[in-house]
Structure formats: C-alpha cells, structure tokens
C-alpha cells in the first residue's frame, strides 16, 4: 500500500517538467494570441512597422534581425567549434583534452550579461574603428553569440565523435588511410547526427539569447542594410519594452513571445529527433 502511494507521488513529480512546459505555452499563448488574431497573422509577421503608441505591431524586422544574428553566429561558430571538437577528440594528447573539455564546459557558465559587457567595451569600438558603422551591429551580435554557443557545440560534438567505436578507426587506418582521412571519411560521417544536433542546440541558444544581444546589437527598429547596421531581435524587443509596456502593447510583446516559443519548439524538436535517431 505504502509502495503504491510513493509510486503515485513520484509519477506526479515526473510529470512536473512537462506540466510546466504546458503552463508556459498556455500563458504565453493566452496573452499573445488574441493580439495576433486582432492584427492579422500576415500583418503581424510581415509588417515592417512597430509603433506601439499608434497600435501598429509588425515584427518582420525583428524576425529578420534574429535570423541574421543567428546565421552569422553559426557561420563563425561552426568552423571553430567543430575544429576544436575534432582536435580535442582525435589529435590532442589525451591528458590535454581531459583538462580542456571541463574547462570549456566551465566557461559555458559565464553569464550572458558578461559576454554582452565585454562585447560593448572591447568589440564594438574595434568594429566602429576598422570596419565603419556605429559598432553596435549585426556583426557584433553575431560574434558575441558565436562565442557564447561555442561551449555547447564543442561539448556535444566532442561526445558524438568520442562515441564512434574504435573499430571503425582501426579498420580505416589498417586500410592505409591517414588519421585525417579517417576523421573526414569515417569518424565525422558516423558522428554526423550528433554533430548536427549540437549545431541545432547551439542555434536554439543563439535565437533565445537576450541580454548579450541587447547590449551589442544597437536595437534599431529597421531592416538592417548590411552587417554593420544595428538591428533588433525578437528577444531584445521583448526585454527592452517589457519594463514599461501596458495593455495592448504588453500583449504585443507576449505575441512576440508566441513567435519565439514556436521557433524554439521547432528547433528543439528537430534536435530531439536527431539525437533519438542515434540511440
């Protein structure tokens, strides 16, 4: 009898995470969807004008901002992250990778505001001086985000590469391939879905990142003409205006949240399916 009650209780705690996810979806949608319906899905998604004072809510420029910043971050982070993971898993002395992997994971704990702060003080003046523009820009946000997603990409791809059975490598080396040929021809192919999952999870982190982006992206409400122009992302739009928004304006920020939530759920599901397929 007692065993039965305990099992029931544990079962309910196990549902807690799923229940919280459901609650989050419920409250964000309840607050945001009515406004999207009122404005019209097309006008909300593709509207270029965001003027809360005159009740015009179009998020297209934020959508484009989030897209460019995330794409830019991945373009920079993928070669560095994969290069680092391959080096640590295949080429570096074992003692070195045993020290460096935890160090890199430790760095994942640095708060995002710290990255943003270093970005404003060190990076944006360099961009302003050498490349032009205001410094606060798509490029600055992409560089800072790429650094922030590196630990995710390195750590998960390293695990995927390490999980490739040794017999695969031995077979390839026995056929006369060099270590590098073995890596590109055999190891990376076998670890492919884990590596892609690491990139998708990194992408999710970049899309959802807020505070660091606010500090370096410049936050202008317009379509960026080049990577040196300032931009505003979906996340920064919410965080910048939430402090003073009321009524319909606040609903519009939750509507931005609905869009962000949907994008993140698509990204998460893709990574989940890839990782499950591997197991």
């Amino acid at each position, binding site marked *: 009898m007692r065993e039965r009650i305990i099992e029931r209780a544990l079962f309910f705690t196990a549902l807690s995470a799923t229940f919280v996810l459901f609650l989050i979806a419920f409250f964000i949608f309840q607050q945001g969807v009515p406004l999207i319906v009122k404005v019209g899905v097309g006008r909300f998604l593709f509207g270029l004008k965001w003027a809360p004072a005159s009740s015009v809510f179009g998020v297209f420029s934020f959508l484009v901002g989030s897209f460019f910043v995330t794409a830019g971050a991945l373009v920079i982070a993928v070669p560095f992250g994969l290069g680092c993971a391959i080096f640590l898993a295949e080429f570096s002395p074992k003692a070195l990778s045993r020290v460096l992997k935890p160090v890199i994971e430790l760095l994942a704990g640095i708060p995002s505001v710290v990255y943003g702060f270093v970005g404003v003080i060190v990076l944006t003046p360099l961009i302003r001086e050498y490349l032009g523009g205001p410094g606060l820009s798509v490029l600055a946000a992409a560089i800072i985000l790429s650094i922030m997603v590196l630990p995710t990409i390195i750590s998960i791809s390293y695990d995927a590469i390490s999980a490739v059975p040794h017999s695969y490598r031995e077979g390839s080396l026995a056929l006369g391939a060099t270590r590098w040929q073995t890596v590109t021809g055999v190891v990376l192919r076998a670890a492919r879905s884990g590596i892609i999952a690491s990139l998708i999870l990194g992408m999710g982190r970049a899309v959802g990142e807020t505070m660091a982006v606010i500090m370096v992206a410049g936050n202008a409400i317009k379509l960026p003409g080049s990577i040196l122009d300032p931009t505003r992302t979906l996340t920064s739009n919410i965080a910048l205006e939430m402090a003073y928004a009321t009524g319909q304006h606040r609903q519009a920020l939750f509507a931005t949240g609905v869009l962000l939530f949907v994008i993140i759920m698509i990204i998460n*599901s893709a990574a989940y399916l890839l990782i499950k397929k591997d197991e």
Partner: protein
Amino acid sequence: MRIEPRAEQRIMRVALAGLAALTIAVLFFIIGFILKNGLPHVNLAFLIGTPERMGKEGGILPMIVGTFYLVLVAVAIATPLGVGSAIFLHEYAKEGWLVRVVRFGIDCLAGIPSIIFGLFGFVLFVITLGFGWSILSGGLTLAFMILPTIIRTSEEAIKAVPGAYRQVSKSLGAGKWQTIQRVVLPNAFPGILTGIILGIGRSVGETACVIFTAGSSLQMPASVFAPTRSMAVHFYILAREGISMEKAFATAAVLILLILAINLSAYYFMHRFIARLR
C-alpha cells in the same frame, strides 16, 4: 594538384590546433579582462556595503543577499521535483508513450530561453497569483528553469549506481522504496549534488527571467515577498545605464568568481562520485 595525404594531415593538424587554441584564448580573455578591471575595485567595503546614488557608490550587500535568497527558493523547489522525477524515470517507469512524452517535455523545457521564462513568471506569479515582483516569484521561475538540469544529472547519478546494490538490498527483504531510500539515493548523492550545484550556478548568472519576476529594488529584502535585485541584474543595470563602469566591473568580477567556484565544486563532487563507484 593532389596534396600528399601525410602532408595534408600535418597541415590540418596544425590548423585544428590553431582553431582550438584561438577558441580557448578568447574564452580566457573574457574572464581575464573582467577580473583584471574588476578585482582592483573589490574590497570588504564593497562586499558588505549598501549601494548609494543608484549604485554609483557604495557596495552590493543587498544584491548578494537577494541572489542568495533567490537561489535558495529555486533549489528548495526544484530539488524534490527533479530528484523525484529522476527516481521515477529510472526506477519505476516502463518505456512507453507516456515516458516518451515526459522525456520530450524535459528536453524541450531545457531549451526554452530565459526571456520566455521571464514572460511566463511575470503573468503567472507576479500578476495572476498576485505575488508581485518578489523573491518568491523570481525563485519559482528560476526553479522551473533549472528543473531539467537537476532531473538529467540526478537520473545519470541514479543510473550509475550498480544494479547489484539493489539486488542485495532486495534479497535482504527490503521493499522497493526502502532500497531506493537507504541504498540508491545515498550512493547517488554526490552525483545528485552535482546537478543541484550546476542549477545554482545557472540561477546566479541569470538576468532576463529574474528582472521581470523579482524586480530591481535596491533595498535589502525583508522577506520572500519583497522585491530584490540579483547581482547579475545589478551588473546589467550599472553597465547598460552607464551608472558606473568601475562598480559594473567590480560586480562582474565578484559574479564570475562566484560562478567559477560553484561550477568547480560541481566538478569536484562529480569526480568523487565517479571515483567512488569504480
């Protein structure tokens, strides 16, 4: 032209080592830069003083206390839920659609951005339940955010306890729950503690979800129903509003040292755990 494979390997090896070195150098630069500019301004008066003129002068004691309370509430709520989930998933659950849904829920929750948690905590705790901007609202929101970390780490820890331990306990006549309570949990404890410590580390550095749920009051919090300003939020406001670069650097240095210490202790417990089970 074809490059000779051995030469190609040598080139790639150097290139990869270069990429790895540059990556690690950038990450170290960030920590070094903050500590170098911040530590000279950190002293006892800063740590135990109260902020004056919006933080332009004085110290950060109310923020240290506020951060501590927020983390305490978050851990007190997330630990029983997280460890309970992990016990159920590993010791009781039979694989089926329900367990798959539960696992999918945990993975998705782990990927939800902090700003979404902030919006959610704001509507549910601050407005709907009427807790206002408070340590309670902020702590509850953080608890849900760190829940997936605690579940995953605890499940790994419980999984690592050898099956033989359970069989011996059962053969001595212990019930299932008795076995979990007396044998599995004590042996998995250092691993579970690692998850809790990682959750603490994440809570301490969080900004976006705390600023909308716990507020940004500079006062020393009197109870869990009082608003507060965490160290990370304080640092953000000092830097963003250009109140004081000196104090911003100093706050960031304290924050980084605290988080590094927290995460290092997580590694310490993890290692002790692995060593003990070997």
